[in-house]
């Protein structure tokens, strides 16, 4: 970095001195940047996993075009639910402000692989005529193919797990034969049980669910209807159920998987640990850099440099380290996130996380430099005459 650049960046001589102090000992500077990058990758991976889990936990709910969900009383998540009497569907349709309502079936089932062996899957049966729910991101086959009896779609990510090599493979679900007629791409579940999509009738047949029962009633509001008032009206007429707006049910499901089970909390704890490890690494390196340059800080103080100048030097060291450490760290994180798209566990590093992590890295480095500032300010300026 030439001095002119330092000025253009508004760093002044304090910034230049900070940069040169860091770059003067190249091997230590590389260790600093590796340490910060490592912390960034650690935090990005943990938070990315958290976002990935969160996304997987609610993706089916978020991809329905329903405005409301009627769920069995006390249901805390989408996957594990009790039966709902189909009567609730007809009652829901009678509520003013409800434009449309339909049943949705979600059941765990045993999938017998063609080559032998069982897998537990989550079967989703929806009304194909309305398109309110059902598979998305179809990469092989067509939604219309599910209209044929006993046909299902699975995600490519789980094709090998489920023993499906190609479209047309015949499998057994709960002892009933079914044929795979399509693949989706990238639809994961929080429980890691593969989603299996089918028409409502097929799902009812494969799970041998009673015709009078279902799992959910989903629907849309009439244009102009007040969502909260219609929801409350539904709740009054369906007292044995819980009625949620779509985003409420997604939040409820996410909160259950991420926090009630402790899975998300453990990921967040790992992220915090990553932050702490990063801070310790950065604090150590910045402290060592400051200690190495103590005589220079002593000289500055003897010359009469104001405290602000010395703060600026050390904080500039922190900001430079954070900026240069964040770049490789976030690059590696984005590459790992890209690689995770073909795996069962999704790591999501959206731009907001990448930018937010820069703020975290900056805060981490600045906090870590506080100890160094204290050390530099504790120097007796008279020390420069005692060498």
């Amino acid at each position, binding site marked *: 970095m030439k001095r002119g650049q330092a000025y253009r960046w508004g760093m002044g001589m304090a910034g230049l001195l900070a940069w040169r102090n860091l770059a003067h000992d190249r091997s230590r500077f590389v260790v600093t940047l590796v340490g910060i990058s490592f912390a960034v990758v650690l935090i990005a991976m943990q938070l990315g996993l958290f976002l990935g889990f969160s996304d997987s936990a609610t993706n089916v709910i978020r991809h329905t075009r329903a405005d409301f969900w009627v769920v069995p009383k006390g249901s805390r998540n989408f996957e594990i639910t009790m039966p709902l009497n189909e009567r609730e569907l007809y009652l829901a349709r009678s509520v003013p402000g409800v434009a449309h309502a339909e049943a949705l079936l979600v059941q765990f089932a045993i999938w017998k692989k063609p080559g032998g062996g069982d897998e537990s899957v989550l079967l989703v049966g929806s009304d194909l005529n309305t398109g309110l729910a059902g598979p998305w991101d179809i990469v092989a086959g067509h939604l219309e193919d599910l209209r044929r009896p006993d046909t299902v779609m699975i995600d490519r990510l789980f094709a090998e797990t489920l023993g499906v090599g190609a479209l047309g493979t015949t499998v057994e679900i709960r002892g009933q034969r079914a044929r795979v007629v399509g693949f989706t791409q990238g639809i994961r579940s929080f429980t890691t049980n593969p989603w299996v999509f089918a028409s409502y009738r097929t799902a009812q047949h494969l799970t041998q669910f009673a015709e009078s029962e279902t799992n959910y009633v989903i629907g849309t509001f009439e244009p102009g209807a007040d969502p909260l008032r219609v929801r409350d009206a539904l709740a009054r007429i369906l007292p044995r159920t819980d009625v949620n707006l779509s985003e409420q049910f997604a939040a409820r499901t996410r909160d259950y998987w991420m926090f009630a089970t402790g899975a998300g909390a453990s990921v967040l704890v790992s992220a915090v640990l990553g932050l702490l490890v990063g801070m310790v690494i950065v604090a150590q390196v910045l402290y060592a850099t400051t200690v190495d340059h103590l005589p220079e800080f002593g000289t500055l103080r003897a010359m*009469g440099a104001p405290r602000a100048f010395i703060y600026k030097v050390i904080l500039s060291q922190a900001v430079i380290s954070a900026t240069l450490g964040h770049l490789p760290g976030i690059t590696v994180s984005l590459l790992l996130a890209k690689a995770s798209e073909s795996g069962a566990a999704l790591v999501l590093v959206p731009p907001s996380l990448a930018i937010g992590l820069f703020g975290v890295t900056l805060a981490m480095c600045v906090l870590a430099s506080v100890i160094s500032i204290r050390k530099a300010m504790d120097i007796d300026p008279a020390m420069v*005459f005692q060498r």
Partner: protein
Amino acid sequence: MSEPALEARGLTLVYGSGETAVRALDGVDFQANAGEIQALMGPSGSGKTTLLMILGCLLHPTVGEVRVEGRLVAGLSNPALARLRLQRMGFIFQSYNLFPALTAEENIQVALELKGHDLAEAPALLELVRLGGRLHNFPRQLSGGEKQRVAIARALAGDPPILLADEPTAALDSINGRAVVKLLAQLAHEQGRAVVVVTHDPRVGDLADRIVHIEDGRIQC
């Protein structure tokens, strides 16, 4: 007659207390005037550097007072003392105390920026100490004499009326030592600065307007 640049009256500095107390300075009076170079001489541990530190507002005396250009420094806060040092004094150290990661020009520019002066003055200051061709050299690329001349140029940044030097020739060979001494005398005589030099070097004594001998914390007549 104008105020002395530096004036000290009855300076006493005692380290420790009781039986272990050490009297580093004992009733020292001192005066430095503009346009004069003074040499503080005496054996090691006699109190020369202690006196320089007190004159430079880096150490508070146990008893006595210091005036800088007539202004009493007792009672000034640490930031006010730092401002006084920054604006009115330039320091030259035995070990040069340059910033090793900065070039000669940048070392001077740090001082210029701290004193609120134009950074473009740095080349002229280096020219003054006859190092105009060494602007972009780092301290490791300079000889001991050159480093000390850069340190003098840095001390001159902001045009301070007082220069305080601690053993500026101790680490230099005779040729470089003589050049530094001549430069310091020139800065006093030609530019009207008050220069105080702590030294063992008799060459400084030869060029000094006044030699102050200190022994056991007392000025010897």
